[in-house]
Structures are given as C-alpha cells and as structure tokens.
C-alpha cells in the first residue's frame, strides 16, 4: 500500500510536469482493495482491471520502473509505451488487460476463467472495476453467464460512490452492488474498502470455493477516491466535508496505525516501510526518466490482421 500510495503521488506530480502523458486516473484512497485481494492470489491466477489500474498492477508485483516508464510512453514500459496508464498489461505477473472502456474487461475475465478451469484447474480469474461499471450491460450479462457456467471468477467492485463526476445515487436506485448477486445466486460480500485486513479476509473466503469447482463470487469494497476522477479534475461535485470525512479513514495510515497499535509492527518498521517505498518510487522515476522513447519502427509493430 505504501508503494502504491507513493507511486501515485509521484504520478500525480509527473502529470503536472507533463512527463506522465495522457489521461491518468489514480487510486489514492482506494489502495486497500488492490492489496487485500492480490495478497490472496497465486502466480497462476489472472487479473484484469479498468482505467484506474496502477495499484492492481503494482499489487501483483509489477516492476514500478516499468509501470512508470509505460506511463511516460517509454520503450522500457510494460507495454513498450503503447498501452499507457489505462491499458497496463503485465503477463509475467498475471495481469492480462486493463481497459479504458468501463466494464469492458469483465467478460474477458469470464473467458479467462473458463480457459483456466479447463487448462489450469484451481486457478482463478479476478477483475477489478468501479461502481460505474455496474450500470453497464457487461456487468449484468456477465453475472448471469458466470453464475450459469459456475466460472472461477472473482468480480471485485471498488465502490467509491462516484461514476466519473456523478454520485451513484443519480445512476441507479440500487444502493448495494451485492444486491445484484442475489438474483443470480452468486456468493457476495460487501466490506469496508478502506480496511485491507477485512478485504483480505473476505477475498480469501470468496476465492477458496473458486479453487475447488465453485464460482463465481462478487466482492464489493466501499471506498473513496481522494482525488478527482482523473488528474486535473477539480472535483467540484464533492463537498469538502465529505472528503475530510474519508481522509480520516485513509486505508494506508489506518493499516499502519492499527498494526503498530496491536504490536504487529513497530513504529520504526512502519516508517522504514514507507521510506523504502518512497525510495523505490524515486528510483523508478529516475529510471523511467532516463529511458528512451520507442524507435519509430515500433509504430507499426505488433499489429495483426
């Protein structure tokens, strides 16, 4: 979580300087779901994400320097600079796609789950998406088919209360995303999305049956993005009091102070972890900065048809 937080704070600054390019969506305030879920996954599992994907890719173990280089459009980036912030792929760490099309990776995760069930029994597919994606046809069609075919897929909804600039209540009368699971008989839980330990426990409980022939499952993490929809969004649609209320529930500080309070982590170790994360991000930025852009020939490489 410290790494993701430090990474995205850095990304936010680098958007300001123009070094990180394009449309960028950070997950500051939402790191717990990425970490809590990915912590129960194995190397053989496959992950998909949406447009707010930096945290998921880092939580799977991607090299921060390669992610940063990708965000800068450099050849050393995960995707050679051709994917960018919204389309991160790291096959070596089991991240098959992230997408700029809201909801678009939900069916991909179903297809991969079907393939895994046949080729790597016990492995699972996971897809992260926001609450905005719940209003797409993909979510509903996918919930139906995943339940019908009992696919080993975990759908993780990071419900931050806003679809772009609009509160959830303006888009749907259904308050809890997990309500939709009831119709299809899908195992589902709603958890405090800023409590990484609770998320980890819920994810673990939901994933276990998927490994032994059950499925699918839905995990709703109630959280909040501390920044706007995209970097540069002034987020005038939110009250300052609401932001302050959630700032007090910051998942990173909450985990650290909780672990220190219970004696699982010393204050010195917590500070050392945070410092190490900041050093790793600084090194990643430095490496990405000095990396070259792709050769002109890359423009027409890796396209089929």
């Amino acid at each position: 979580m410290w790494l993701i937080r430090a990474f995205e704070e850095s990304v936010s600054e680098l958007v300001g300087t123009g070094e990180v390019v394009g449309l960028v969506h950070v997950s500051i305030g939402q790191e717990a779901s990425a970490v809590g879920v990915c912590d129960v996954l194995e190397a053989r599992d496959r992950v998909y994400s949406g447009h707010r994907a930096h945290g998921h890719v880092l939580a799977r173990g991607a090299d921060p320097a390669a992610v940063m280089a990708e965000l800068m459009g450099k050849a050393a980036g995960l995707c050679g600079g051709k994917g960018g912030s919204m389309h991160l792929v790291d096959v070596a760490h089991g991240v098959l796609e992230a997408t700029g099309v809201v909801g678009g990776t939900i069916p991909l995760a179903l297809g991969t789950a079907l393939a895994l069930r046949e080729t790597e029994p016990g492995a699972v597919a996971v897809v992260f998406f926001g609450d905005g994606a719940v209003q797409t046809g993909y979510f509903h069609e996918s919930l139906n088919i995943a339940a019908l075919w009992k696919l080993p897929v975990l759908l993780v909804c990071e419900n931050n209360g806003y679809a772009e600039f609009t509160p959830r209540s303006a888009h749907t009368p259904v308050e809890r995303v997990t309500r939709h699971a009831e119709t299809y008989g899908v195992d589902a839980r709603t958890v405090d999305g800023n409590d990484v330990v609770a998320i980890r426990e819920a994810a673990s409980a939901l994933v276990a049956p998927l490994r032994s022939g059950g499925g699918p499952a839905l995990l709703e993490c109630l959280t909040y993005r501390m920044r706007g929809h995209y970097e540069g969004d002034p987020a005038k649609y939110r009250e300052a009091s609401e932001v302050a209320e959630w700032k007090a529930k910051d998942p990173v500080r909450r985990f650290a102070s909780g672990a220190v309070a219970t004696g699982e982590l010393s204050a010195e170790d917590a500070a050392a972890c945070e410092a190490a994360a900041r050093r790793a991000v600084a090194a990643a930025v430095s490496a990405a900065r000095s990396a070259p852009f792709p050769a002109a020939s890359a423009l027409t490489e890796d396209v089929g048809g």
Partner: protein
Amino acid sequence: MAETTYIGAINGALAAELRRDATVRILGEDVAEGGPFGATKDLAAEFGDRVRDTPISESTVMGIATGMALAGLRPVVEIMFIDFITLAFDQLVNQAAKARYMSGGQLRCPLVVRTSSGAGTRSGAQHSQSLEALLVHVPGLAVAMPATAADAAGLLMSAVRADDPVVVIENKELYFRKEPSFDPAPVPLGSALVRRPGRDVTLVATSRTVHEALAAAEDLARDGIEVEVIDPRTLQPLDLGTILSSVRRTHRCVVAHEAVRRGGFGAELASLVQEEAFDALDAPVVRLGAPATPVPVSPPLEDAYLVRAPQIVSAIRSLLNGSA
C-alpha cells in the same frame, strides 16, 4: 459425383479443427443445437462442452471469447447475423483487435468470429447487411469473405490457426449452394484467386458477387469480351499484387460487391489501384455496390438493391465503350 454445400464445408472444417487441436472451442447462440443453418450440426455430440451455447448477450460473449483467446484457447465464436456484430463491436474493436498492440506484443488473441452476411432472403434491414468495410477499417482484424465451399472451409481452417483475430464473413445465399466434393485444405489468408482469366477487363468481386461476376463474364464472352474475375478471398490482408498485375494487363478495373457502395471496400480498392497502377489504367476504376439505403423486404425492391450479373455486364459494356 459426390457434392458438398458451403454450410456442409464449414461444418466439416469446424469438426476437423476441433479434432486437430484440443484448444479449439466453439461458442455462440444455439451452436450446440447446430445453429440456424447447420454450421455446427452434430459437433456438440462429438465434442461435448467444447461446443458451448451462450445466452443472447453478443457483447459479453465476444468478450468471453476474447478472454479465452488471451488465456491460450482458440475460440470460434458465432455471431448469427453480421447485423448483430454491432452489439459486439466494443469487444471486437476495442479489446480483441488491440490486445496485441496495446500490450506491446505480450498478448496474442487467436480469436475467430464466424458470421453470416448478405441480402436476398427477404429478411429485412436488420438481418441482411454487408458490414465488412467497418471491419476492414479496424487495424488488428483480418477479414475473410469466402465465395465457395472450398474457401469457406479453407479460410476457416487458416483463421483457426492464426494467432490474431480473424472475422470470417459467410454469405447466407451461398449456404446451400452445391459444389463437387473436395479434400478440405487451409487457404492462406491474403491470397487472391483468379477465378476466370481474361484480357479485356479486371473484375474484382467478393463473396456472393463472385458468382454474379462469373455469370457476367460468361455472358460477355459470347460477344468476345474476355473478363478476368478475381476473388480476393480476404479483404485484409489483401493480395493487391494479384489484382495489380491483372490491371496492368487489362488496363481496366471494375470492383463489385454486395455492400453499400458509399464508403465500401470498392472505394478502398479503387483508390489502391489508382495509387499503384494509375499509368496502366485506360479509364477510371468502376465501383458497383448497393445504394445507400437499408435493405428492403419487398421482393422487387430487394432484387433491385443487389448487384446482379446484368448490372455488371452493363457496366463493363459501358466501360469498354468509353462511356463509363
């Protein structure tokens, strides 16, 4: 002599590919029941749940097939009518076609989409379209349009073996057309076929219109006009070399297809021919296609909509008379 149909050839090719490669899967509406035209007849009995019925959820099903392909399977997804591919366009255009490129080559997407196209069945504007130009426009997709049973089988076999997405557009009017039986063999993508040699004009036609073109050529031959009929078989990749070498001999080119003329594949081909062989042309390239209207149901209206042999004959006579 033993005969086979276009649809029978597709069925045989699917069975052969399922037998050859354990990673091949079929999915789509009604496929386990054989499908509306019989393309997947009896396959579920032999291959079990490798042939999987899906709900009527085209966009999600296209996404599922893409997700299967990204995880190493070779899915063949059936979109019953090409009109419904519009529902699945997001997954096809934004995910399947781009996965390899956006991932910097980390991913391959060996996805095959089979779909049926074409008018002539009085089925109206939402079950009769020819939308291949929309697909050719999308980088990352290959587009095949078989005109014969042998090509329907052979192009499908190559599509299943390709590592990038291929859309195979079949033609409904050809489904029950009979041909002498043949040994199915893969037909390479990007390989045009000269269906009839001729010295006077190059006639490029696709899918069902190939047969109209051959009938037109037969008719014109009675007057001593020798038409060379070329079937590109795949629009992307396009075997432009075969077409250009013909145009350099005949000095005239006509392109005929069933799709709407405006923004159609003929426009692309005419442009390519004029860019690459302008000096060889004695006249502008002629394009024949449907008017810019939806496909009507009323028999005389639909008959007028389609490019048939007489229209091709007339266009070629005008071209040779210098009045094109």
